[in-house]
């Protein structure tokens, strides 16, 4: 057991825990942030994606010790931002949500992409979200949603 201090959704938090525990489990079970989903548990599907110091990571592959003194944002924290509102609107307009299980991770991937590249091409978007699996949509509507957000959110990213 060790005390791990980190920033979670813009607040400093402390948790006493086995330091090898997966960040995913700590977020879900300790902090009840269940918007972070477990789809595969091996870093392949992206359903558990969160922002770690602004970069996308799969929280199932991160031991909690690794976030000590770092900054973690989950969908719950991200959903309080202006960027989220713009992306949410774009996802709804394009029909990018079906079962919704991949959606929080997909939103995080979209944000991470737009931060690095505010005006992505279709190819950029395909590459940017390729770490996130979706079995419902065939991806086209998600790709269009990111394109739409990039235009409607001009200046935000």
């Amino acid at each position, binding site marked *: 057991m060790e005390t791990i201090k980190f920033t979670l959704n813009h607040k400093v938090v402390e948790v006493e825990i086995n330091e090898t525990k997966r960040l995913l489990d700590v977020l879900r079970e300790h902090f009840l942030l269940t918007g972070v989903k477990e*789809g595969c548990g091996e870093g392949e599907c992206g359903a558990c994606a969160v922002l770690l110091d602004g970069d996308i990571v799969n929280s199932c592959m991160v031991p909690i010790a690794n976030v000590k003194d770092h900054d973690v944002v989950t969908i719950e924290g991200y959903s309080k931002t202006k960027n989220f509102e713009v992306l949410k609107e774009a996802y709804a307009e394009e*029909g990018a949500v079906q*079962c*919704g299980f991949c959606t929080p991770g997909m939103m995080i991937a979209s944000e991470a992409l737009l931060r690095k590249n505010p005006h992505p091409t279709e190819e950029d978007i*395909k590459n940017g979200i*390729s770490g996130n699996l*979706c079995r419902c949509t*065939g*991806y086209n*509507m998600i790709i269009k949603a990111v394109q739409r957000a990039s235009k409607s959110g001009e200046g935000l990213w």
Partner: protein
Amino acid sequence: MKDISKSVFKVDNDEKISGQAQYVSDIMGYDFLYAFTIRSEHPKAIIKDINLPNLPPGYYTVDYTDIPGKNVVKIIFDDMPVFAEKQVNYYKEPIMLLVGKDKEVLKNLASMVQIEYEILEPLYTYDNSVINYHFTKGDPVTAFKNAERVISFDYDTGYQEQLYIEPQGMLGYSEGEKVTLVGSIQCPYYVKNAVIAILDTTPEMVRVQQAAVGGAFGGKEEFPSLIACQLAVAINKIKRPIKLIYDREEDMEVTTKRHPSKITLEAAIVNNRIVGMRSKVGLDGGAHIGLSGVVLSRALIASTGAYTIDNLDVNGDVFITNTVPNGAFRGFGAPQMLFAIEMFIHHVATELGIDPLTMRLDALAKQNDKTSTNGTFRDPIIMNQMIEKAMEMSDYKRKVKEYQNDDSFRGIGMSWFLHGCGFTGSGESTHINALVKLKKDEQNQVHILIAAVDMGQGVKTTMKKIVANVLDIPLEQVTYNNPDTDFVPDSGPTVASRTIMIVGGLIARAALQLKQKWVEDYEVIVEERYQQPSYVKWDEETFQGDAYPAYSWGVNVVEVEVSKVTYQVNLLNSWSVYDVGKAIDERIIIGQADGGQMQGLGYGYLEVMRTKNGKVEHKNVTDYIIPTSVDAPSMETVIMDNPFPLGPYGAKGAGELTLVGGAPAVALAIENAINHKVQSIPMTPEKIMELINHGNN
């Protein structure tokens, strides 16, 4: 009146996008115990003895001796045990649950359970038929006797895994003698009825609620009944809330998949026309029959695809093997058959040296033609228009000739297909007999009370639209919560492309009734029950008559490029035209079309799952590859208007239709690119290499 097809924002967008939607694993707050399943380590063996470690206090085992009812999961064919008793019949068959507070302790205890087996010889080949169906149309014997030529080809198809992103899961608790189960499920009443039987109790003692469902595709049709039975027995014994959530590997190793198949088709040819056909189909059912017989009948009925063939002999078997049981998957037998028939008609034409398009257009089904089971295509068929449209969008005619003759390794393929809407045969009236309710409360809010599950296909939105449109009230004045069997009647399972056409049709009629009975500020409840149209006649024994009340139709065109170096297939473009009667929401239908198409294409060229010595070899997302965003082609979809008189606003089924044409379209495109006949899916780079080097697969 407003055009119902005009899209609205989906009603569950906000909760899903923000991560607030509650899937079963997200439900916290009860003091849950966890269950871990102890499974067989052999594909076929007799259980001689089980040695359990000493269990710490608060830890329990649950096995067949704890079952109050009969040890079988009530599905359609009741042969799957809830827990294996004396013998196991597939690798990882469930034997018992370990239940307790700490997941790590459970895993540790599980590793100490020792089971002694007497190993038996497993069977993996298509030799033990447990179901055989046979039917004919016209006079196939004479047609083959008088044929100028008989042409035959074999086809085979592999497994497909649903790979919903949310793995299977269920939780439950008891209040007194009453057991409540909450799960990721398609069919609340299948689960309820299975649990009533396993606990040998009465309907009011079992309550089933649907949590948000993270994808299903048929995978959550019958399988959740097994987990629900195990969990209900555990709760009945331990009297504590228990959670049973699979991780990905367990899910992929033990849950039902699409049946692998072997299909042989034979054509009797006179004057360059197919005058008769023999269809022989074998499905690998896995270790238990479950839904395999129903899957087989849908496959057999689809033997002639979108064509009319006058003389027909259809014969099919379900074979039992010592592998994981196969079951429901979007398309339900049709994807295997439609792959075979679409390839076959091309291969026959090629063999005869005639243009496949000419042969197909000549054989295409028309209104009033007899179906494969001597029923009638009563409603207008607009396939000619749809085919024209698809060929124009894709520039098919030019490309197919060009790619045939050049060495670009590009190819284009076009599939034509239909899908019967609703349960096969008289299933809707004899097995389901759906009941729906609408309740208007004193605040004039209208509640939709049905057992249909929104698993991403948008049914919460579309049902609300139907009710709001009929009653001419705003969408917000209609409520549709996740089904809870304590409140909703049995409107049937969320399967078989029946939800909008059958349940939505009943809801539209109920809304009309409510409109007439509406009294402001008073509670009003109305009901509607399914009645089979009197002209639909079906004989389940002989497979004669109208197998479905209506058919949806589709055309897919796919363009690919095959790498000359690695033989990897790259999807370039996909164009689709669908007749689903009438779209209840255009954007939702196009979403279904895109996703179904991607899943159907994946089935055709990419998704490989095999078993070796009875074990699933591809049991995680690293080994079993599904399409990613990088694999997605650009997609263009056109939805036609061809209203079906009995559907709500003319709507027919749509969910499965969008998958079933994907595999033949991509297989034909690969064939066009490499100039070799494709008879097997998935068409992997290894198989393409074999074809190019040796001419066979």
